[in-house]
């Protein structure tokens, strides 16, 4: 009986260690608290990125960008998965009032396994550019990724 209890305890300990290992923090959220100006036609990297660890059986992830911005002409924003091309662009309207104020916008992208996800670490980099020349200034913003389950 003692042996059974001991074996059971060992199994539980192994499972517990496994659970803690899954809790290793990844860079699933990022926050920027300064202005960045990007000039040029779509699409190129906007530098900031987040990462998430995918299990063996890939699951879709949700990436959310929430940002203040000023744009001299309409702009496009998207996500590059693991360094690949800029996907599923979102439209930001022109916004350049003389009072210097910013507009805000929040976008959500669903990235499916077929979009280039892979087992292990996956990186999602913000990208975009202007629709017709000009520039966009991103103000305070956040970028976050989470699994869809």
């Amino acid at each position: 009986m003692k042996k059974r209890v001991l074996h059971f305890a060992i199994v539980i300990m192994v499972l517990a260690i496994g659970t803690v290992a899954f809790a290793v923090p990844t860079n699933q959220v990022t926050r920027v608290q300064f202005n960045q100006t990007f000039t040029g036609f779509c699409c190129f990297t906007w530098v900031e990125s987040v990462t998430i660890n995918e299990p063996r059986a890939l699951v879709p992830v949700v990436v959310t960008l929430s940002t203040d911005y000023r744009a001299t002409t309409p702009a496009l924003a998207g996500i590059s998965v693991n360094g690949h091309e800029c996907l599923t662009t979102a439209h930001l309207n022109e916004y350049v009032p003389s009072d210097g104020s910013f507009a805000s916008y929040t976008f959500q992208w669903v990235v499916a396994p077929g979009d280039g996800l892979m087992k292990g670490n996956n990186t999602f980099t913000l990208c975009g550019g202007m629709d017709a020349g000009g520039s966009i200034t991103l103000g305070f913003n956040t970028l976050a990724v989470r699994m869809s389950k």
Partner: protein
Amino acid sequence: MKRISTIVRQYLIGLAVGCFIMGCATPAFPVPPNEVLQFSNFLGFSGPCCSSFGVSVQVTEPAKPSPVVITWSTDFQSTGSVLVGLMLNGGPCTFYGPASISFSDDGSRTFQWVVLPSDGLRVGTNTFTLCGGGEFGDVMLGLNGLANNTNAIAARLSN
């Protein structure tokens, strides 16, 4: 040989029982009610930035605090540009991400804010209160919930 097979069998049974217990426990965690809030009444504010809107959510941090993601969606009416942010545990109104509700008579906005442990998150209960006001002076701001609960705020641990 028989003894080894008995030990292996005991381990497999233990593993199965352990997995069953953990599998049952995982879906048993509900979203704590303090982490989400929907309000269906009209909330009106006036004045310059920044003062409390009196609307809060709470998150309980573990021994090692992790970042909190707060999402707020609202319909609104305003008479000028508005800035919105959060007060962490009753502290000053701070912009943990985008803050601007640009001037328009009405519309809808969603904000996602990220609050980091270095911002002052503490072990146990943390309270996040909506705050804001006019960017360039007095404005009148109305947050509409109405019957369809279009005004909702939610907080969750990022891990």
